């Protein structure tokens, strides 16, 4: 009996030895690894992942439209006191390196760049359909250029990364001169994207909304314009025109929560939204549009949420010309047309005005987290105005009249005489003001005023509206302190 027990004991220990090799091999249940992806669905999913950071509040869902506040078109509003204080300090030009909004917006494009690099490293190796492969590479390059464009405009020189980090890589890069980034990443990526991406019409069903040739061309036009390369910019704007984009008949058709407002004939590129899904409203993967929720007049219940952000200033409202249809469509003001059957009163906001453009009525989006409206990044009106600006700067002022007039005509300003017989300076002024009104609250104003006259336009304008604290250093945001604590190789922008 004893001997049997002894033998059993030894055997059990020995079997343990035998089974040990697999015992310690565990693989994750939930997360696949990049090296294991081989099929088309995974490749598409990787590309989809590269789009998602655009959706986040760190970019188009919040921080991008708050740039209009910093540019002086509006005020934060909200609850007052410390509500939105991080944006208020930026808008008053007293922000320091630990400003929370600067940190938040720094967190916006960087993950997107990594996801684009992941696509560009892994998709070419996959054994999938050639046209899908090219399209995916084109989409990733378009998005990467877009993310870097936002970073260099806001922060100036930033680290340049065109591959995913590998063991042994230097994870503490220094800042690269922004012109290098333009010349080595942004412009070549967009040029490649124009080659690789199909035209908008080639997309159907659930692919509508992906980056297209026109989107890349339009973005490149904007990049060239920012760099003062007017001839190249003009060429790109004309390419966009040739691809068949048109203005919507109604200005409001580009914004709104119903299906007909999405991916319209005028839209070159939009950030897509869905409404309520399992991701929470405040999480990075939230699929609901925040704009209506944030910009609804506070405590009125006119839309879901209604936090009362982004209240237009009197100075902005005064810019509207008589007969401009856009006034009623862009802002809410006392005496203006009703919204969803309700009349606006000036005491609903600190300034007497609220933004109307993005509000979605309760019948379409009943709650704060159900809004599925898309956010327009680039539309044809913008391209027309860029064309006009490029033509004017090249001295071809009379040719600039037509594109400018097209935009104004749609807005109800049908008198062509307003744009005829103008000097270069007068035309320039006209185009700049037109951009301010046409693209109001879409996040373009800040980028415009800091590029005009090498930033002097911004300083002059801000001083004229009372933001006397604005100085040269404020044309760039501070590199967030948290990032500098993690990476001491990052220098700070001058003056912070």
């Amino acid at each position, binding site marked *: 009996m004893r001997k049997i027990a002894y033998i059993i004991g030894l055997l059990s220990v020995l079997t343990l030895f035998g089974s040990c090799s697999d015992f310690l091999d*565990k693989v994750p249940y939930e997360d696949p690894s990049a090296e294991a992806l081989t099929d088309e669905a995974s490749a598409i999913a990787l590309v989809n992942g590269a789009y998602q950071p655009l959706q986040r509040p760190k970019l188009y869902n919040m921080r991008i439209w708050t740039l209009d506040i910093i540019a002086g078109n509006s005020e934060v509003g909200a609850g007052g006191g410390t509500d939105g204080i991080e944006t208020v300090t930026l808008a008053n030009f007293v922000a320091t390196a630990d400003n929370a909004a600067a940190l938040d917006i720094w967190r916006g494009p960087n993950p997107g760049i990594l996801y684009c690099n992941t696509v560009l490293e892994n998709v070419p190796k996959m054994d999938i359909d050639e046209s899908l492969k090219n399209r995916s590479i084109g989409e990733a390059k378009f998005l990467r250029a877009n993310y870097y464009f936002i970073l260099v405009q806001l922060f100036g020189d930033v*680290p340049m990364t065109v591959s995913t980090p590998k063991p042994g890589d230097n994870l503490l890069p220094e800042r690269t001169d922004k012109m290098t980034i333009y010349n080595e990443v942004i412009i070549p990526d967009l040029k490649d994207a124009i080659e690789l991406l199909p035209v908008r019409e080639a997309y159907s069903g659930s692919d509508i909304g992906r980056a297209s040739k026109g989107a890349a061309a339009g973005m490149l036009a904007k990049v060239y314009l920012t760099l003062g390369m007017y001839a190249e910019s003009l060429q790109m704007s004309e390419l966009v025109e040739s691809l068949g984009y048109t203005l919507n008949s109604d200005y409001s058709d580009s914004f709104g929560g119903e299906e007909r407002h999405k991916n319209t004939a005028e839209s070159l590129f939009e950030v897509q939204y869905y409404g309520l899904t399992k991701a929470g409203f405040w999480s990075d993967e939230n699929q609901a549009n925040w704009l209506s929720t944030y910009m609804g007049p506070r405590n009125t219940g006119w839309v879901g949420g209604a936090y009362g952000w982004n209240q237009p200033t009197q100075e902005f409202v005064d810019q509207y010309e008589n007969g401009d249809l856009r006034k009623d469509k862009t802002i809410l003001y006392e005496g203006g047309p009703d919204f969803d059957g309700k009349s606006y009163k000036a005491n609903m906001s600190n300034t007497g005005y609220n933004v109307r453009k993005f509000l979605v009525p309760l019948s379409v989006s009943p709650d704060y987290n159900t809004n599925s409206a898309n956010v327009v990044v680039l539309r044809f009106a913008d391209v027309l105005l860029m064309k006009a600006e490029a033509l004017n700067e090249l001295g071809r002022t009379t040719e600039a009249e037509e594109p400018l007039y097209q935009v104004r005509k749609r807005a109800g300003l049908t008198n062509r005489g307003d744009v005829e017989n103008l000097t270069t300076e007068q035309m320039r002024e006209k185009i700049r003001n037109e951009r301010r009104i046409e693209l109001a609250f879409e996040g373009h104003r800040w980028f415009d005023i800091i590029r005009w006259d090498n930033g002097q336009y911004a300083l002059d304008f801000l001083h004229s509206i009372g933001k006397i604290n604005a100085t040269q250093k404020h044309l760039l945001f501070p590199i967030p302190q*948290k990032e500098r604590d993690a990476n001491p190789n990052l220098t700070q922008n001058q003056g912070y």
Partner: protein
Amino acid sequence: MREKQKFFKEPFAYRLVLFVLCAAFTANLSAQNQKTISGNITEENGVSVIGASVFVKGTTTGTVSDIDGNFSLSVPESSVITISYIGYHPQEIPVAGKTHLSIVLKEDNQLLDELVVIGYGVMKKRDLTGAVSSVSGETMKDKPVASIGEALQGRAAGVQVISSGKPGDNVSFRIRGISTINNSEPLLVIDGVPTDLGINSLNMEDVETVDVLKDASATAIYGSRGANGVILVTTKKGKSGDGSISFSANWGVQTATGMPQMLNATQFASLHNEMIANYNQLASSPLTQRADFADPTVWGEGTDWLDELFRSARMRNYTVSYSGGSDKGNYYVSGGVFDQDGVVSNTSYRRYTVQFNSESNVRSWIKFGNNITLSHDIKKQGSYDIRGTMASLPTQPVYNEDGSYSGPGEPAYQYGDIRNPIGTATLSRNRTNGYNVLGNIFAEIKPADKLTFKSLGGIDFKFWDQNSFSPKYDWKPIPQPQSSLYEESNKSLTYLWDNTLTYLDTFADKHNVNVMIGSSAQNNLYNRMNASVQGFLSDNNSQLNNGLTDPTVGGTKNDWAILSFMGRANYNYDNKYLFTATIRRDGSSRFSKENRWGTFPSFSAAWRLSEESFFHANEWIDDVKVRLGYGETGNQGGIDNYAYFTRLKTGQYVFNGTPVSTLYPLVMPNQDVQWETVRQFNAGVDLSLLNQRINLTLDAYLKNTSDMLVPMSVPITTGYSDIYVPSVNAGEIRNKGLELTVSSRNLTGQFEWDTDFNVSYNKNEVIKMNDGIALFTGGDINMTKVQVSAEGRPVNAFYGYVTNGIFQNQEEVDRYATQVTGGTAPGDIKFRDLDNNGVINADDRTFIGNPFPEWTFSMNNSFAYGNFDLQVFFQGVAGNDIYNANRIWQESMSVPQNQTTKVLDRWTGEGTSNSVPRAVYSDPNQNVRHSNRFIEDGSYLRLKNLTLGYTLPKSVAQKAQLSMARLYLSCQNLFTLTGYSGFDPEVGAGGVDLGTYPVTRTISLGLNIQF
């Protein structure tokens, strides 16, 4: 009175009876003069000694004492009789001229024969070569605390116990300082099963001993999980003899103490007026004053929110157990209920435990045994937030006129923006249910005389559910429009299989050898499912099926495994020279194949000087042993189960109204992650002095952690999350220290007085970190971090600005370095310009404090007089700093929240204060930035426990059929001496106080009965 190891007595007694009876029949009747002597044998305290053996010296003639301690023996006239009994000094008495003897036996307090549990075995304390502290269940029981974790506080040198005080929460242990910034918790082993079951799931009554393995030569046998020390808990076994039934009960009342003083309504109203007025001086758009604050005096006291939230709470604890045994086996079964209301309204904790232990010697060569712990606990609470309760305005009543919960009005800068804390604490329902099964079953086989083979299979199953319901309510400022339910279900299943083969032998009478080899395999599977839904018709029917809108689901699964092989050899020569060597090889599934295995050896030696021939036995020193040891242990605590994989998360996006899946990399991968290693040197000396009246242990240690796993500081430019970060092996930490334990029996006799005292010193330093770049650690407080681990400093040292007084007038502001342009004004705090560049910015921060105590100490004094006993237990720490983060809001005078009374000394004009700044809304100068303003000394001395007990005299107890009955009064946390201004200087292992629970003082009455 010190408990003895009585379990040797009974079997011996019966064997002796048998033996003696035989001997009596074979006794040689000599022709010498025989006479009969009789006698009575008692212990020092008068209790009769049953079964003591009485022999004629040098013969086999003898007898045993009976139930009354009497004996009678026929002996030769000139003989000498010896009386002996295990655990007592034997006596020899010549019988010449005597017929009756009254013999008093003195206890042989061979504490050194105590057994200590070490990894995979037991050892006599006298044979230890490593540093092990033993705490018996007796010292810890009958304390009005929820768990044995709290009862361990201060009982073992070098073991720091940190308890949060919340009902149902587990304590944190730190053994010999903090050796890593990761998981510093020691390994908890219950009845041989390493487990992550919280120690609060055990019933204190069921614990026999707790042995703490502190140095590497003791912990190396646990290899990779022993780096932070090992706590071995052994539950009770039945004792041979008549079975016994015991019952204990404890009833207590707890109250919160040490509450900070907040402003009353009048004081707050004037503060608020001042805050807004100072803001309006420089603001471009001034704020309006609150009209109803125009005359602060009409407000009076207002609402005391903290008082509304806290209440006296009662606590009850009942245990029934029965146990017994024989030489064929033993059993111990117990059941207990612990019920505690929390001092915060609407919180409670209840725990049921059942313990079932048994051992059976089925054959002489095979023994089976099992230990099973079943426990079920229920934690209930509303939604409460202590800091939010402090912050609520005293000018706001708890209820509105219609009885509903009040809330702040608009705008927020006048009324605040905190939901009614009493309302949420009462109306929200959070409930966590836990069900745990911890068990093992083992077989011990002796294939040959000196060989033992033991195989143990263990399981550690934990199931816990969480259910949170918040009703629809029109809260201000933000209402909850729909009632919402969140439910979560978790299960964690761990399996263990240990095998050991031990060889015990003695050669030539002097060479004692104990060799063990073994293997251990453990794996775990964790599964979670969660769901939430909103929109309930009624709060009473609130299951997931009743919800109407917004359903969400989630869930995940993960696992890990560890495989180990180990060996140990103990050799001692004549109990004079002792050597131990262990080795363990561990493989973990968390590391890649290249980095998977680690080898952890240890060596230790001890020399019992007192056994040497040159050592003259004297009445001063009885026993001297010096010990020296070195060992390596590994740590993998706190790293992700799949740390080395490159993983993509599944997310979502949408095109043209159709949701699509996305894949994206979230966490930076680290394929090279590997074991963290701790190398420890230990030197110690054990002294037993004055006839074992004083026992002293002194240990000195040096602990070096290398390849420490630190959360990587991921720059956002990599694109990876800087919040969900991987661990990298990038640090080295050194801990060095001293531990002293002294136990002395000061007075014996009628009035007894014993003292146990321990003190330890630990110094902690980061030797290397991340190639010289300081790592910011800890959570974000007010959006930035205040702790850093940097070379040459203690781990998690506090880092911030240094204050330099207050600007008294505008001229001082203009002269000084620039702080905040357009923001700094008289009354604001001056910060030192440490780099002398005329600007105060992030480069002017420095090290401002150390969160770890240098000294921890405790002293227990026990007194006994007759049937009364008294224990007085003090415990404390010194040399640590606390960052009182609550003050960032509750002393800032810049937000619409209530403040502590400290702000009554604020600056109101030139010369009024040089320490408390002015009240100004939105704090433009950032007076609350992380600085030494909120660093406080965390040293404290606490009268932790005072217990007065009365044991019923045996005669009285026997009348009631009881073998023992004891009544006691026990008080926990009676008072605390400290300079710390927050709720409780025991703020948790991080050293930061953010909403810490207050100290609870408990007074209780208890009863122990044994049948």
